[in-house]
């Protein structure tokens, strides 16, 4: 097929660890066929050959965290036919959103030797807080199979099949014995968005919510369950306030000790 007819793919990064874009490079078997189907026009992690927009599909990693980001995210949106955000930073603001409920200037002063050189916003926010987003793919990091599903769906012009239900669905489907029920292990599975294939519970570790809240949660029922399983209020707060702190904090019941201060 002539080059001009291939859809153009762009991969962009904001405040993030690069792990989600790395997922694309991890698609070893599918990477060459992908390069055959799309023109990889902008993907700095893979190549310095950077071509200007417009892009048919832009995958955007990272949160909006600096004044420069505010302008750049609009430019990328304007250059993109479809914009898909990938990973907890881009969909929820990431772990760096812990500063949203704290004093960002104080964090800066503690962390950096010369804080006057740091120009960051007081909050870390998802891409969707600034520009319209066509699809949000969650996870910290995202799941490789889901990323391929999203890309193939956009290539085929269909809706990606990314269920919004809980991690429990995945545990039951793969036959994992329920950790809270059979072992009393605290697990965020019942309120966490599926997508990882219930990886942690399959290895005996409770879900820690790295895909953020599912589409249907009941935090006022979930938090007492975590306490019954022996978690102190401080532990509950820590468990919920990690990569998806912004999304979990938004659904925490008012007055619960888990709500409030970032840490």
């Amino acid at each position, binding site marked *: 097929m002539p080059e001009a007819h291939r859809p153009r793919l762009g991969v962009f990064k904001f405040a993030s660890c690069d792990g989600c874009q790395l997922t694309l490079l991890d698609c070893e078997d599918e990477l060459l066929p992908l390069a055959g189907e799309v023109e990889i026009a902008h993907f700095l992690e893979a190549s310095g050959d950077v071509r200007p927009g417009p892009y048919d599909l832009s995958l955007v990693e990272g949160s909006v965290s600096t004044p420069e980001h505010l302008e750049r995210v609009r430019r990328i949106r304007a250059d993109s036919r479809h914009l898909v955000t990938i990973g907890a930073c881009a969909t929820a603001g990431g772990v760096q959103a812990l500063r949203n409920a704290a004093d960002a200037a104080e964090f800066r002063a503690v962390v950096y030797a010369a804080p006057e050189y740091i120009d960051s916003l007081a909050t870390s926010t998802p891409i969707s807080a600034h520009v319209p987003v066509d699809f949000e793919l969650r996870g910290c990091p995202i799941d490789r199979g889901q990323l391929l599903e999203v890309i193939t769906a956009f290539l085929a012009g269909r809706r990606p099949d990314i269920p919004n239900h809980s991690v*429990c669905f995945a545990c*039951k489907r793969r036959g994992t*014995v329920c950790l809270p029920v059979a*072992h009393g292990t605290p697990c965020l599975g019942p309120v966490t968005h599926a997508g990882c294939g219930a990886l942690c519970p399959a290895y005996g570790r409770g879900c820690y919510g790295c895909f953020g809240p599912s589409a249907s949660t009941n935090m006022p029922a979930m938090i007492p369950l975590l306490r019954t399983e022996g978690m102190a209020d401080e532990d509950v707060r820590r468990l919920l306030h990690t990569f998806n702190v912004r999304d979990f904090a938004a659904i925490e019941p008012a007055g619960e000790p888990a709500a409030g201060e970032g840490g």
Partner: protein
Amino acid sequence: MPSATAPPDTGSAGCVLDRDGMGALVRELRARGRTVIGPTVRDGAIVLAELESAEELPYGWGVELEGGHYRLRRRADAAAFAHSAGPQSWKNFLHPERVRQWTADRGPDGELTVRAEPPAAASFAFLGVRPCDLRAIQIQDRVMIGGPHRDDAYRERRTGAFLVVVECTEPGATCFCVSMGTGPAAQPGYDLALTEVLDETGHRFWARAGTARGAEVLDSLPRRPADEATQDRARRGVAEAAGRMGRTMPPVDLRDLLADTLEARRWDDVAARCLTCGNCTMACPTCFCTTSEDITDLTGDHAERWRRWESCYDLDFTHLPGGSVRTSARSRYRQWLTHKLGTWWDQFDSSGCVGCGRCIVWCPVAIDITEEAHALHQESLADRAGAADGAP
């Protein structure tokens, strides 16, 4: 019944197998080319998995069950079947969580070729089917192959499956098969029925065949005629189990109860506790709902349709162009309970609940189907009494 062969001629007294006989049973079923699935200990639970030998049965293990609580317990004796329903059920094998239905390819000339997935050959033997679970299999038969729309792949797996029922002598704290009329004694539909007996005279299984192929298997095993004492002991064990049910349903017509309580206040109460996580439907041996999943490859020239388990707790379950119909937890919990106990009758002419207790045990927040039914019953009694009092 798909497994119906010639009418059974078992000799009503049956025979007795000892522990070696159980070993021989597994060997014989395997020798006949069957994949033997039975209970075994894994990951802190008694799960259903392929057995290579009867020694993998959970000899000496029991379980402690409560709402949202499951623990393995060492027993004082060596019983293999002194445990009730575990985390999975036979639907995991007969109605697997994900099945490919067809594939489509577009050739270089643009022509489409669609291939239906041929039903995979399966020859299971299920060892240790509890009477409630036998009923659950029959209920799924009605859904999957008993109506106008039949699932050939299910039929293939189901007709190929050899069922060894083990009657219940040790109900769990969450069991209520007596209320649902499904146990603890075996009802027709099995190839073999066993009852485990442990006493001074030893560890043994009273065995009866229910089909000709069951009798044939039994005839090939080292066995002895069933003595009176073993039969008595076995019958007594099952009768006593009936008196030790951990749970009951209210003694009313559940279908009427559910039809009359659609606007009950109790639904708000349970909705406040329900996580809408879907565990109850996935653990339930009769829930059958699926959704379809279409996948394409990067070229767009190859597509596949899969069917995977779905649950009425998923918002997408009722997704229509305008959004989901059942958005509240109240409407989704109510869908589950009314379907299990009420509308299943309208749809399939039976209850959708067999009283296995799985949904109680595997609900992380211990929501209990029997407790909810009792609460609905009490509320409707109170409302009726109130209405009578208040009548002018």
